[in-house]
């Protein structure tokens, strides 16, 4: 798993540190339990030679309607923090992967009632977030947002959401 947390070396300036801190408080518009940093969509924060703070963001899905809102939220949060001129850059490659969701993000997702994506090599069934039974079934590959699928527990019969693994 790639850690979504920033690698803050000695060179990281105060601006970069403040920016990461501010981004860590911006909620994802579709899943407010997670911050953009938890979700792993903030790819980098760096200062360019002209002193503009560049923030790289990867969309989870190309058609995700939240992408534009996220851009605005990022700009607003950074303006409010007073870190100076900011440029938000969309980064397509490497493509965002559900593996980039941080461990903290996975914990928050589970607490929110959404089953976090499994590791790619896991063969275990998706467990019910309520009764923890592994006797579950997928009822729809697509859910209420592009990033989720719908499942149902055969034991407690409750439907639940699963964060798609891509």
């Amino acid at each position, binding site marked *: 798993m790639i850690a979504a947390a920033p690698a803050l070396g000695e060179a990281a300036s105060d601006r970069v540190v403040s920016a990461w801190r501010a981004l860590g408080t911006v909620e994802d518009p579709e899943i407010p339990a997670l911050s953009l940093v938890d979700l792993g969509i903030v790819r980098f924060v760096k200062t360019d030679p002209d002193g503009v703070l560049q923030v790289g963001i990867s*969309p989870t899905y*190309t*058609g995700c309607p939240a992408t534009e809102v996220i851009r605005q939220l990022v700009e607003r949060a950074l303006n409010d923090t007073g870190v100076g001129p900011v440029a938000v850059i969309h980064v*397509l490659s*490497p493509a965002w992967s559900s593996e980039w969701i941080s461990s903290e993000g996975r914990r928050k997702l589970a607490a929110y009632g959404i089953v976090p994506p499994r590791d790619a090599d896991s063969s275990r069934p998706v467990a019910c977030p309520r009764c923890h039974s592994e006797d579950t079934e997928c*009822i729809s590959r*697509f859910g209420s947002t*592009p990033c989720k699928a719908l499942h149902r527990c055969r034991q407690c019969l409750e439907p639940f959401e699963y964060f798609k693994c891509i």
Partner: protein
Amino acid sequence: MSAAATNVARLLYRYVLRVGDLSLVLGQRLGEWVGHAPALEEDLGLANVALDLIGQARLLLAYAGELEGRDRGEDDIAFLREQGEYLNPTLVEQPNGDFGQTIVRQVLIGAFQLELYERLVDSADERLAAIAAKAVKECRYHLRYGSDWLVRLGDGTQESHARAQSALERLWPYTTELFAEDDLDREMADCGIAPRLAEVHAAWSVRINALLAEATLDRPRDRAYRWFGKQGEHSEHLGYILADMQYLQRAYPGARW
């Protein structure tokens, strides 16, 4: 820029439109199911696939606009071109028909998109490669959805099997166009920008044969065809899609929301 480089940029513009228009028109078609699918889950499923396709089209058309160099953005290109300037294959503009026909079309074109994007990931053009790297993951997921349904319909009741087979017979002739290599395909492959269509065809065939076997459907014979949407010669159906899709921009030029 040298004359040769200008020529490649011009050809690349057309090629990117070809890939992007496929997503745009198919996304628009699938969007027609919203509120009409057989069950809420399928309404969500088809709408989600459509949304991803429109997202891919946005990335590709925005890039086409830059390559063209006439200061046209993704919206100008999507909403203000004439029918003959659309370069999508004829298959994706075919009417949705019943749910079975939509699923068959989805599998035929979805398998093509997947095989194409898997190879465009290694394109000599970095931007196209980056877009493909993103799109390929979505297409893989879409094809799983389509394949599940194809097997359920084909290997389902007598009625669902008959309808799926009839949709397959109806749509099959349009698949020939996907693999008919023209000058543009050849030049792009020569530059290492696009894969050879013969290679895509072979991989597509293996995938489709396996799926059809699982769905207990018979692969139709290849037949002669006349449409060549990817060169701008479309069936009667595209005009109706565009009339609907472009209405707002035509009626209120420059409208923003």
